[in-house]
């Protein structure tokens, strides 16, 4: 066999074997990986809308997904808004829990972030950042409190505390929250997302 033919044959055979090997591994792990993602989302919904028993996806578009959380009786008790946007260094994505009329934020959970460790990465920190989001009035766009204060009592009704040394990361989360809330309101108005409270009324 000439060298050229041998080179082609050897590379092709290695490629084919590797390819079929990978296809097998891919098939074997696919289901579990999808399940892991699903579970992570469900956990986030249960965290941001307390008392959720079951949840379902209501709407999805690029950078935004809306989940509905239902309690034991099957009544819709809140929306889980999975949104993402650009932070200081990379994408930030989070799950935001609101009530069905989009007037109160129940809780916020950061799903993914690659902010500076020790500074911007504190957006994941419950005591430094996330606790200030709990039960926050969001009928008006939220604003940032700068410089930072120590307790939630010192904040105005629509104010969110800044992380000292990480203004841009705090601001990024705030902007994504405001714009996604705006977008969800628009979607509900246009009838893409049904909030059952309106049906009852």
């Amino acid at each position, binding site marked *: 066999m000439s060298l050229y033919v041998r080179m082609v044959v*050897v590379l092709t055979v290695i490629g084919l074997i590797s390819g079929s090997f990978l296809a097998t591994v891919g098939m074997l792990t696919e289901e*579990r*990986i999808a399940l*892991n993602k699903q579970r992570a989302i469900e956990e986030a919904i249960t965290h941001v809308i307390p008392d959720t028993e079951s949840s379902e996806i209501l709407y999805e578009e690029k950078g935004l997904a809306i989940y509905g959380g239902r309690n034991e009786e099957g009544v819709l008790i809140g929306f889980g808004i999975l949104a993402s946007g650009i932070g200081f260094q990379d994408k930030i994505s989070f799950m935001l829990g609101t009530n069905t009329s989009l007037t109160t934020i129940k809780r916020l959970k950061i799903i993914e972030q690659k902010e500076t*460790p*020790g*500074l911007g990465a504190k957006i994941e920190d419950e005591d430094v950042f996330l606790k200030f989001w709990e039960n926050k009035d969001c009928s008006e766009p939220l604003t940032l409190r700068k410089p930072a204060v120590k307790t939630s009592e010192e904040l105005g009704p629509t104010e969110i505390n800044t992380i000292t040394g990480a203004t841009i990361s705090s601001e990024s989360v705030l902007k994504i929250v405001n714009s996604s809330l705006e977008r969800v309101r628009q979607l509900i108005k246009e009838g893409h997302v049904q909030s059952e409270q309106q049906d009852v009324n």
Partner: protein
Amino acid sequence: MSTKSIGQEFTKGLWDENPVFRQLLGLCPTLAVTGWVINGLAMGLATAFVLVLSSLVVASIKKFIPNQVRIASFIVIIASFVTVADRILAAYFPAISKELGPYVPLIVVNCVILGRQEAFSSKNSVSRSFIDALGMSLGFVLALLALSSIREILGSGTFFGYQVMGSWFKPWIIMILPAGAFLTLGVLLGIALHIEYKIKLRK
């Protein structure tokens, strides 16, 4: 062909030819994911998985690979095992997989792995290549553990996630930033060279 004893083949990876401290190979993952011990350990084990399996395969099929396409063949084999490692992490250890992010696929370009295929597995028997890969992997894991222990203890005051420093300790944030990785690696390399120098003097 290597003329070392099997034992030496294994231990050379730990010190004499340690991939990080002596050969300065695989520095990208060494610097990037050693902020926490758990990440360093996971990265070390994933690299070990790929290195050992690739060495076994390359040493078994080296006769059939024409010299001209050996690098391409090695890379395809390495990339396959890296993808397997990536999928297994994503399926069974989602938290670690999320932490390591793009650095798992980047094991493909870790020079330790391709370097061992080129310098050792393509010239030596399957059993020797296996021992060599094991030794190199262990050397790499130990180096990552050394770096990540120092960085996690000084940078977060924890070890393996457990608080080890008292409340008086203020974490040095720089140690978990990229600069801390370079500082730690530099100091460790200096210490390694110093020890090597002392050993040579004694001989």
